[in-house]
């Protein structure tokens, strides 16, 4: 799969914003979803109490994870589900491969799972002669375009319908120029129905796993998870350790919050509770660590594991809306992606915590009240301290630290700055200053607040 490994968020975003019309449209499309979330949330008088309860349940999960995992595992086994543990993405992929290999299966249908995207499962299986088809429409579109999803809920939100029409023309033989969403969806429905009917194995992600009963819940709007699972001989579910919740009644809290936060719907069309295999069917569940226990040990960042993957932080984020999900070069993009990614690979993702204005809108909409913007700020400090920040950033910060280290230096540099902006603005407003990119420097004020204050204090006395 195509992935931008060498470019950072700023340069990828730079490429995205060149098409101003597309940026405006993308910005508007996501803001529209944010507004739908607000309307849905306001219809629930106890909304804020629900968020608080959800946050507390997830805090409890994080603090008792060991016990809940053992309980969940034991109940899964009682229900007849085979449990696997994977320490890494590689081990996860090996497990999936061995399950399929044992049944001599070489084709699998998959519903949405960000975890398997993170593990690059499709590529791994394809290298070993197993074909995987993503059945969520948005993910299917991204797959035929050889691109990762740009949003966890709306995988191809950055694409125009004409581009999708072109992809369908190339891959599904639709008429050239066809771009009507309903007609394109009908074509995909027909094509994928045949996939569901012919695949012996189906893999799904997991939204919530109930320790108390050993069942897991998968939420979709399209019905693709159920079409795959109920027609399969082998059903596989992959989940990160953090997806476990204590009791079944807690689903009431999470399912009330999830779809309303994600798209403004009162609930996803399908909330499927998988407990036991069908007669003649095998069910496997893979519990994946892949860095999660490391994040659990990071005091300032462990709360990122509370995420229920609704995507509301992306829809509200001014940087995400204007830079597009692919500019984050990580499976999970947006604000939540930017606090999860540095744990996975700090060097590769050092740029992401800086791709934010720290406005805090993400934390305000998060259904489980993750302090996302605080964590972004804290990651910046860790990244600089551990020496992963780029040279320009480090230099800028060192200069700032020097400037702020004494009132005298601050006053002098401030005066010098104002003088330069007034008489030599071109020295600052030029391409050599990275801050000037996409920004106009303001006109320098004639005096600083300090100078004004002294003058006015003197006037009074």
């Amino acid at each position, binding site marked *: 799969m195509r992935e931008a490994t060498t470019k950072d968020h700023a340069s990828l975003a730079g490429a995205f914003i060149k098409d101003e019309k597309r940026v405006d449209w993308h910005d508007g499309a996501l803001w*529209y979803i944010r507004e739908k979330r607000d309307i849905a949330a306001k219809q629930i008088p*106890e909304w804020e*109490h*629900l968020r608080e*309860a959800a946050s*507390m349940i997830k*805090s*409890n999960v994080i*603090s008792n994870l*060991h016990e809940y*995992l053992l309980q969940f595992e034991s109940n899964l086994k009682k229900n007849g589900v085979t449990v696997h*543990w*994977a*320490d890494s993405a590689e081990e996860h992929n090996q497990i999936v491969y061995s399950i399929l290999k044992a049944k001599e299966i070489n084709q699998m249908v998959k519903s949405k799972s960000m975890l398997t995207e993170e593990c690059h499962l499709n590529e791994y299986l394809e290298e070993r002669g197993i074909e995987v088809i993503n*059945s969520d*429409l*948005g993910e299917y579109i991204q797959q035929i375009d050889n691109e990762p999803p740009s949003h966890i809920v*709306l*995988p191809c939100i950055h*694409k125009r319908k004409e581009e999708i029409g072109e992809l369908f023309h190339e891959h599904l033989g639709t008429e050239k120029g066809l771009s009507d*969403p309903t007609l394109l*969806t009908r074509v995909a*429905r027909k094509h994928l*129905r045949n996939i569901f*009917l012919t695949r012996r194995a189906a893999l799904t992600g997991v939204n919530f796993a109930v320790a108390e*009963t050993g069942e897991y819940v998968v939420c979709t*709007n*399209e*019905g693709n998870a*159920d*079409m795959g699972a*109920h*027609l399969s001989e082998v059903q596989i579910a992959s989940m990160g*350790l953090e997806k476990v919740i*204590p009791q*079944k*009644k*807690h*689903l*009431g*809290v999470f399912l*009330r919050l999830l779809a309303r936060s994600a798209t403004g*719907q*009162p*609930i996803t*069309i*399908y*909330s*499927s*509770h*998988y*407990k036991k*295999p*069908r007669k003649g069917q095998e069910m496997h569940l893979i519990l994946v*660590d892949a860095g999660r*226990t*490391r994040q*659990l040990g990071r*005091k300032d960042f*462990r709360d990122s594991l509370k995420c229920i993957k609704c995507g509301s932080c992306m829809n509200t984020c001014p940087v995400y809306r204007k830079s597009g999900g692919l500019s984050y070069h990580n499976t999970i993009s947006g604000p939540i992606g930017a606090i999860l990614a540095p744990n996975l690979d700090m060097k590769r993702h050092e740029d992401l915590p800086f791709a934010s204005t720290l406005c805090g809108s993400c934390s305000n909409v998060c259904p489980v009240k993750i302090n996302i913007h605080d964590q972004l700020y804290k990651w910046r400090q860790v990244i600089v301290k551990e020496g992963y920040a780029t040279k320009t950033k480090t230099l800028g910060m060192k200069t700032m630290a020097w400037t702020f280290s004494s009132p005298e230096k601050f006053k002098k540099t401030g005066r010098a700055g104002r003088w330069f902006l007034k008489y030599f603005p071109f020295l600052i407003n030029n391409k050599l200053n990275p801050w000037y990119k996409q920004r106009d420097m303001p006109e320098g004020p004639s005096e600083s607040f300090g100078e004004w204050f002294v003058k006015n204090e003197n006037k009074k006395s």
Partner: protein
Amino acid sequence: MTTREKILASVLANQPAATPLPDISMFKNGSDALVEKYMQVFKTIGGLSHVVTDIAAIKQLITENFDTSKRIATTLAEFGDSFELISDAVDPHSYSDLELAIIRAHFSVAENGAVWLSDELMGQRIIPYICQHLAVIVDAETIVPTLHEAYEKIGAGNYGFGGFIGGPSKTADIEQALVLGAHGPLSMTVFILK
């Protein structure tokens, strides 16, 4: 050390001090007019609902609104004289040409329009997903206000599979344009038996 032991040891070493679970018993919405509320919400999510007084009325509405020359199957003995009964003994793939499925739900939820049904009511797990159109019968007095009451009602649940279904399948993946009928049913009708 197996991977399992390694992961569990790492979880234990890294998890913070225990914090308590919240009390969620106050999330209750005792409300009347549940039928009206349910119907209004269900409409907004693209569903159709009818209040009916008996099975004969449902039969009448089905013959008026669906193509009865196509395959229609049901789990309900009351419809056995008119439609095929769903068998749990056949290959689920054999229902791929199912036009309409008529099944019962345990109850429905007013706040979100969803019905709850477990596999014993589906006949086969695939039925409510593979049919082109889905018709579900719910008793009016079973409607609950919110998901909290719903989970209270479900309890531990002695099922292999259960699901909330809230409307026809849908997608908005192409430019946020809402399309009903993604992979599951193109339409969903709920008959509220009063």
